[in-house]
Structure formats: C-alpha cells, structure tokens
C-alpha cells in the first residue's frame, strides 16, 4: 500500500441553508491520478476550494501527507443551521489560508483561467516561484539574492521548455490561445513545486485533439515530477483514459467511487448524469 497523500474526512460545506458538499470522504495515494466527476453544480469545485483553503468547511477535516491541515466544526449561526452529519465530532478549528497550503506542497489550477493578466508567460511562472524564495524583502530589493533569482529563472525556463511554451515566454499571458493558457496555468502550478496537483477542468473548452494532447501531457508530468494528481473533468474520454480511480459527486454527496471500469457501469452514476424519473 503506497503512502496516503490526501484524505478528506467528513467534509461538509454549507452556505446558509444550502449544502454544497455533504459529508465528503475521499483518499488519494501517492502517484495516483484521481478524478472527481459529477454533473454541473454537484459541488466539485467547492470540494477543491475546501481542500486548498479557499473555503473553510462547515464541518470535517482534511489531511495532507499524514498531517491534519484543515478542521472545523459548525460555529455561530451554523450551529443551528447545520444539516450535515458528524456534528460534534470535530472540536478544533484549523483553517490556514490557501498560500500556507500551497507551501505545504499542493498547487491548483482554476476552472475559469486565472492567469496574471499584465504579466508575461515567463513572469506568470516565475511569480509562482516566489513562495519558494528564501530572500526577504530587503535582500531581494538590494539584489543580495542573485544566485537564488538566477536559479529560479533557470528552473522556469526549463519548465517552460517542458510544457512547450518556451518560444512564447515573452508574450503577455492573455495573448496566448486558450489551450496554451490552460497549459500555462499548469506550468505555473508546477512552479510552486507541489507534490499534489489539483486540476480544475483542465480540458474545459478544448477540442478532441487538444484534449488528447492534454491527456498525454498530464500523464507525462505526473511521471516526470513524481506527482499525485487530483482533477475535476467533464471530458469522459480524458477521465477514463488517465484516472486510476474516480469519485462521483451529485448534489454534494459522494454517490460512487472506483476504477473507471466500475464507474462506467455504475447505475447510480448513469442516473445522475442522465436523470431519472422521480418514482424510480
């Protein structure tokens, strides 16, 4: 059994009375590619946001590399409103900001591309290296960190070569075609030197050929950087091709998990995607 990288434990995310993620449990092991799928509005991105610290879950915990990084229990107004399970099981409040979680070795991309618009391709990746810099503001300003800066620049160049964006490195990030922007987002996440990479719909808006290329690319970077990958995706070909395991969310609840083959034949998953008559 390989090492457990990510564990989400009884995570519930409730906005007012709406339960976006309901008692989610999942585990990801080292080196795996795991997909999170589900119909629109199932709570996939919310789950990502809970894991990466953007949202504080209403209840539950997240473990990363055997260390508990997030924990919360219903507080304040939520005490009355809380509809989820495992109430009272968690007592601690642990809610680091996203940057702290990134520093622990988790990096993500966004569903609706969030590159830094005014920056070049090169700088977009270089900025992600900032969290690995050891210089303080004084040494950086007075250029006492030359060595580190140079090393980082070199890393970025290598990274850009690997993802195939080296020849456009001085272009503005937003001037790239859509597919390349997605790639750049992945490169940027990689620059933060993660061990776990979270991809939020990396193939959204891509044509079949681009999707195939991306599929190969994801496998490639997993091997090269020894990554564990957790991704949200709607392109079923991609998901079925590269995932070791799949979790399926519907209305915030986990309705199935298993290998691609198992998921493809799971009646509940098919129902969730195709809809089912009320009396069924």
């Amino acid at each position: 059994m390989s090492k457990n990288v990510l564990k989400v434990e009884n995570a519930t995310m409730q906005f007012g009375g709406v339960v976006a993620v309901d008692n989610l449990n999942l585990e990801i092991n080292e080196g795996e590619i795991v997909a999170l799928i589900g119909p629109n509005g199932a709570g996939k991105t919310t789950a990502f946001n809970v894991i990466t610290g953007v949202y504080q879950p209403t209840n539950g915990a997240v473990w990363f590399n055997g260390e508990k990084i997030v924990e919360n229990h219903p507080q304040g107004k939520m005490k009355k409103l809380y509809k989820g399970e495992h109430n009272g099981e968690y007592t601690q409040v642990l809610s680091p900001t996203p940057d702290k979680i990134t520093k622990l070795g988790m990096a993500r991309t966004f569903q609706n591309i969030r590159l830094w618009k005014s920056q070049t391709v090169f700088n977009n990746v270089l900025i992600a290296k900032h969290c690995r810099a050891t210089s303080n503001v004084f040494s950086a300003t007075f250029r006492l960190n030359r060595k580190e800066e140079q090393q980082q620049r070199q890393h970025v160049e290598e990274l850009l070569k690997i993802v195939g964006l080296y020849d456009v490195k001085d272009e503005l990030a937003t001037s790239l075609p859509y597919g390349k922007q997605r790639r750049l987002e992945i490169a940027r996440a990689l620059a933060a030197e993660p061990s776990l990479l979270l991809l939020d719909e990396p193939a959204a808006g891509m044509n079949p050929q681009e999707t195939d290329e991306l599929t190969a690319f994801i496998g490639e970077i997993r091997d090269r950087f020894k990554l564990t990958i957790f991704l949200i995706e709607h392109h079923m070909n991609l998901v079925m091709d590269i995932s070791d395991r799949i979790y399926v969310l519907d209305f915030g609840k986990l309705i199935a998990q298993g290998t691609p083959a198992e998921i493809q034949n799971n009646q509940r998953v098919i129902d969730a995607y195709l809809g089912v008559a009320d009396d069924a």
Partner: protein
Amino acid sequence: MSMTKKKTIFTAAVLLVLLAACVVVDLTLPSYHIVVTVIKKATVYSLVAVSMNLLNGFTGLFSLGQAGFMLLGAYAYGVLTIPVDKRPGVYQYFDGGAIKFSLPEIFAGFLGDNVGTVVGMLLALLVGGILAALMAYLIGLPVLRLKSDYLAIATLGFAEILRAFFQWNALGPITNGSNLLKSYPAFSHATPYVVLAGLMIAIILLLITSTYGRAFRAIRDDEVAAEAMGINLAKHKRMAFIISSFFAGIGGGMMAMYMGTIAAAPFKSTLTYEILLIVVIGGIGSITGSILASFLYIFSSEWLLRGLDAGKFLGINAPGIFKNGFRMVVLSVIIMVIVLFFRKGIMGDKELPDLLDRRPKKRKKEAAGK
C-alpha cells in the same frame, strides 16, 4: 540581452545629463528662482507619487492615506531639526517645547558644521520615514483586510485622525499644536532634492523589479490566484503598505524642507487627491510616468499657467477671466479629460526606457505576419 544593456546605458546617460543640468541650474540661478522651485517641488511630488503608485498601481491597494504619512514625516523632520536656540521662539505658547535637542546640531558637534548638519537632516528624514512606516503597520492591522473602496475611505479617515492629533493642544510641546513649525534647516539648492528623491525612487524601482515586486503585481492582477500560488496576501499587502508609507514619510519630510514651515493644514485629503491624480496622469503602474506627470503638473501649475492667474496668458490680456484660481480650474479640467478619455495616462504601465524596444518588436511581428 543586448537590448536590456542598451536600455541601461541609455537610462544611465539620460539620468547623468539630467543631474548635470540640475547642477548647472544650481550654479547659475539663485535658489529662489522659479526653475529651482519647480525642480524642488516636482522632485518631492515625484517621490510621493511613486510611493503612492507602489501601493495603488503595483499592489492594487487603493489607499488614500498618503497625506497622513507625509504629515508624520514632515512633523518628525521639523521637530527634530529646529535649532535649540530657535525653539523658545517657535514653541512660544508651549514653553519652548518638550524636545530640547536638534539632530543637525548634535551631529555638527562631532562631524563638523557642514557634514554634521546634513547628516542630522538626513537622519531626521529617516526618522520621519520610520515613524510613518510604524504608523502604517498599526493602521494596516485593521484596515488592510478591507476591500477596495472601503480601504480607500478607511485610510482617508486615518489620515484625518492623524491630522486632528497633530493639532491637539495636549501634544503642543511636541507638535506646536495648531501653530507653525519653522526655522528648521533646509537644502536651498535643487540638486540635493533630486539626488535624495532619485535614490529613494531607485530603491522603489529595485523593489518593484524584485521577486517581491512581482508578487505585488500578482496580487494586483488576481488576488485569488496569487494566494493559491503561495503568496501570503496579508503579509505582502502589509509590506507594500509599510514600504509605501515609509517613502511617503520621507517625501513629507522633504516637503517640509521645501515649504519652509510646517502646519497640519496642507496635509488634507486634497493633497492625497492631487497626488493620486498625478499618478493617474502618469499612468497607474508606471514609475517614470509618475515622475513625468509630477514634473508636468508642477511645471504647469507653478510656472506655465501662472499667467492664467495673473491676468495675462499667451499674450491675451483678460484680467476679468484670468484671475486668481483660474489655472487650477484649467488644470483640473485637463485632469478630468485625462481621467475620462485617456485612462491609461501618459505611460500606461510602461516605463520610459521601454519606448526604446517598442519599434523593433513591431517590426518583428510584421515580419512574422508576412
């Protein structure tokens, strides 16, 4: 690589020429000459505008507290440099004040009159900057969590609170209450202003091009993405706020030097607005833009448009229209036109040396197009 080298050489050459010109001005013109005045005031404004740009333009924190930090710097400078024998006269309502020393005099004691006085003056400026930075740290604790316009109004409020404190009679032995601080030493030539402000701006420039400056810009472009990429928002915002305020404090001290007297009144929100508008004219996110705009603004308001106030402009004699205040009306109309129709200002987010490489790039693109 050669392009950047070319740019550096070019920039260095231009800076040297400007500095030389400034020295020549100082050697040939009396210190009360309008050219000297314009250079002094414009350099001070440049520094403050650049410090504001660091925050508003490069970090995307819309703060309107600049006048408050300048006030701190100005007072610190005045309080620490007024000669001891002049203090009874200045603090006549407060028994000669609570502070019985003067930094320039202390240093003149063991460094000689000339060097010591200058060292003392510089140290007083530095103290002003540090005080402003400390204040920024304190203010930042509650305020930096606020979003955009709320941040603006909260920092504006803090500046007003500061102003009230400095006019408070109970602090009179230090601040002289609502009376003027005066008789402190100041550079009469333009060159020291240019060198000082130039050094400060150079440091800001170095910061902006460092890894921290890049992080600031990432926060400006997309906070959520910046945080997701491991940039600690609270820490970096605080840092930008403190550094910007530090330089505003120093700018305030220099402003005090330039003005000759210190009172709380000129450091109203109007001063912040003025500087903000200069930043906008120059281009939000452009250092050279801010400097250029400062010089243009001061040059027009102090010199070029003077005639608009004095009855005669461009040979047109119309004392009925060209009377006191008209030049500011004209200036603010120009500013509004820029704000409304040329939102990028003079420079956008480009720097002056960038103009050098614009043309070759275009050609390259055309070639690629063919």
